[in-house]
């Protein structure tokens, strides 16, 4: 089922979640609620991609849960005919952590945005990643606050002029991929709302991953930050800027694959060069399974705020025990070692009797 062979660990992300043989379609995952995003919002494309890829997993619908925070993207659960919780600003990863730890039979998804995940909820995001809870986090990044009507976000480029920054924003933005890798996220990927094929591939790989999977999805806000990612969509520009990753393949891009990613022998820094100048052998072959996150981090540094280059696909997918599995194992081991005798617990070791 995994489109990209990443040499995943034996225990899949969905192990323990009940499956069904019944045929499912996107319609089965569509709730009766009217979708209320603005016309042209990138969220529609992501919703469609999720609805139509979920049937492939063959999971029982009632065992899928979407948890979100606050923001435009966080309305997502209402539109899915699964269990869902639209929680509070930034806190979805913590709520999903409690759910995931207590319920191994659920496939738990977090839907969040750049403000929700990286500003008010930054703490919970990095701790979910470090713990490696079995959660799939979809971070819709439109580089703006939409629901509060257009203030700059922690991924907005420096100098962004918005209602709250009439003279331009001052703060340096987060690169969500770098941040996730800094927290040693075990699965970190990026996709574009407009590239349905790659988005679906990445979602599939995320679902199969045991542990926290962070998927950053570039998403256009047509009202407050329209065209933020246009340069990645225009023919001619797109090929020159997007660096797609495929595990086990040389990292090449350009209309004719004329560019490649090479490693500077002296500094170890990754750079974009013309393949014709450096030779095919110099091009780095992508390995998402490298345990040391430095390589994936270096990949995340290719390209900057101006999107001169944008790396997409799975940066990193490594195996590390998930927190929820470990927490349940401790409980199971404790149960096996000592019967739950409430009377004995309450009495304790030192009692006396009054006759």
């Amino acid at each position: 089922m995994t489109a990209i062979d990443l040499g995943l660990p034996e225990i899949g992300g969905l192990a323990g979640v009940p499956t069904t043989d019944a045929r499912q379609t996107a319609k089965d995952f569509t709730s009766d609620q009217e979708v209320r995003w603005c016309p042209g919002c990138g969220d529609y494309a992501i919703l469609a991609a999720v609805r139509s890829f979920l049937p492939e997993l063959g999971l029982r619908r009632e065992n899928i849960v979407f948890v979100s925070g606050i923001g435009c993207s966080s309305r997502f659960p209402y539109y899915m005919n699964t269990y869902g919780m639209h929680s509070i600003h930034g806190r979805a990863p913590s709520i999903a952590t409690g759910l995931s730890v207590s319920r191994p039979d659920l496939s738990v998804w977090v839907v969040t945005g750049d403000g929700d995940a990286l500003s008010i909820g930054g703490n919970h995001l990095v701790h979910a990643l470090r713990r490696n809870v079995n959660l799939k986090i979809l971070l819709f990044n439109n580089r703006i606050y939409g629901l509060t009507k257009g203030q700059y976000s922690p991924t907005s480029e420096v100098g962004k002029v918005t209602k709250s920054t009439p003279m331009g924003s001052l703060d340096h933005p987060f690169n969500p991929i770098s941040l996730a890798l800094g927290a040693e996220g075990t699965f970190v990927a990026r996709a574009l709302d407009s590239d349905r094929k790659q988005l679906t591939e990445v979602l599939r790989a995320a679902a199969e991953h045991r542990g926290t999977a962070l998927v950053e999805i570039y998403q256009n806000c047509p009202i407050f930050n329209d065209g933020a990612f246009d340069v990645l969509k225009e023919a001619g520009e797109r090929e020159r800027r997007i660096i797609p990753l495929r595990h086990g393949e040389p990292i090449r891009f350009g209309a004719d694959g004329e560019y490649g990613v090479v490693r500077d022998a002296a500094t170890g820094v990754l750079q974009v060069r013309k393949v014709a100048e450096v030779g095919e052998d110099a091009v780095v072959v992508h390995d998402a399974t490298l345990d040391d996150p430095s390589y994936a981090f270096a990949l995340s540094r290719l390209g900057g705020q101006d999107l001169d280059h944008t790396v997409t696909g799975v940066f990193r997918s490594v195996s590390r025990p998930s927190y929820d599995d470990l927490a349940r194992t401790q409980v199971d081991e404790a149960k096996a070692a000592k019967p739950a005798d409430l009377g004995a617990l309450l009495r304790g070791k030192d009692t006396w009797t009054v006759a």
Partner: protein
Amino acid sequence: MTADVGSSPTVSHGTPAPGRSAEVRKLDRVVIRFAGDSGDGMQLTGDRFTSEAAAFGNDLATLPNFPAEIRAPQGTLPGVSSFQLHFADYDILTPGDRPDVLVAMNPAALKANLGDLPPGGTLIVNTDEFTKRNLAKVGYDGDPLEDGSLEAYTVHRVAMATLTKGALEETGLTKKDAERAKNMFALGLLSWMYHRPTEGTERFLREKFAKKPDIAEANILAFRAGWNFGETTESFAVTYEVAPAALPTGTYRQITGNTALAYGIVAAGQLASLPVFLGSYPITPASDVLHELARHKNFGVTTFQAEDEIAGVGAALGASFGGALGVTTTSGPGLALKSETIGLAVMTELPLLVCDIQRGGPSTGLPTKTEQADLLQAMFGRNGEAPLPIIAPCSPADCFDAAVEAARIALTYRTPVLLLSDGYIANGSEPWLVPTVDELPPIEVGFATEPNAPDGSGEFWPYLRDPETLARPWAVPGTPGLEHRIGGLEKAEGKGNISYDPDNHDRMVRIRQAKVDGVAVPDVEVDDPTGDADLLVVGWGSTYGPIGAACRRVRRLGMTIAHAHLRHLNPLPGNLGDVLRRYRRVVVPEMNLGQLAMLLRARYLVDAISHTKVAGLPFKAEELQGVFTEIIKGVAA
């Protein structure tokens, strides 16, 4: 002078016990305070003496008092740590206002505590620490042991460190390590003075230092050396006996409030046949509940030490959504951080147990001291109309019942419930009549399993309510056919979809309030033995002991007084209004600036007198006795 009943301790003179050189006197109660440097092990010493008193069958109450700093500068006043223990041959309500015996391990401990020792009290001093330098450190010009300033007391000067080092000479321990056992010397001496059993302490030390048998033996040697010092020297002419108390029959153990609270949470999970999920972030004085629960995973308890207070309650709520008993434990500042998530729990109507072990505030305040100033935060500390039930235990052992009761309400009514304990009962201990597990009523949870739409559509309406409790169905993920979405946005009555309809919002706000108002709580009982008191004292939470002890004193003076103690702060008991109107005066003592008094005045238009103190320590019975008698005299006049 310090007895709960307002009398001097009953003393009967006797002859030396067989094999004992000193005269034995029988007392009905004693208050001992161990005081020393934070590094002197005073809490451990007090704990052990408490265990001995408990094992002997006395009734008891304890008051640990320690600084927030783990090791404040040695020998200074801020570094003093103390443990007060009251034990008696009858049922007592408080750790005692003042000690009868003060053990002072250094000049700082003497200076910080002497003011509480009444004239005639016994003072046992570790003379080794009374050096010029240590005396100067705490501002003593001369040596109080020599300058006659302690004439009012019976002073025992004991070179505890020297004697301990001497006793451990042959163990091969360094002098420094040997000296550290001096607290066990003090414990041994006091154990001899009060005829305490010793086997328990020796067993405890062997277990505690199982991995360091030489340290275990050193402590036991020091403990025995203290005992033998009392027995063989002639400095102590009298020893004392406090007979076991005549408590109701049954099996007892000693328990602190935080342990009882943790056990109540474990029991609630068992009674409801639900896994327990605790999401928590370490905070004084609540951390011990996390520590205790972490040890009981075999009961299906998962403990999650979150990255912050918000994540702790968030994870607990997520677990509740998944069908577990979600619990979070904290203290005041943490409760402030959790308020938004508690509001979400109010809106999503999911069970959640929130335990606030109150401490001195505002802000960081007094982390290790007690206060009950979070009542209004519990009541109103969320945006919007966000009512929730509030329960407050009244003693360490009562924390067990309060936790079970809080969980029962949370699960029955699908609501967050706030339990308000405080530092005094959390760390204090008392004997607990251990309940019989089979007699604890089970908690019926009743997950939703079927679609419930009244229109026969076969849909599931997550906000359709039980007509009796107004609780909504708890449909957990994994239940086929009941897929639904909940969240913080206002819900349409019944169907539960997002609704911005003005009338619906007005209705839903009132329904949420009505649900909490309708929580079944028992009538408040009034302790009014003569039935003709003019003054009613209304208290809540940990003031139960001091108020009860003060009422006993007032009655011993020949006056009448009534006491009603509130366990349920929201909703308040149905008979409370009638009770309040029955008395000519009502006084409400609180360790805040009158929070319950404000609620009672607003709710019942009763002209309640608010008596308040926020000193970080519990009320003294003596002080409340004075307040009550003044009011009674005023009413009569």
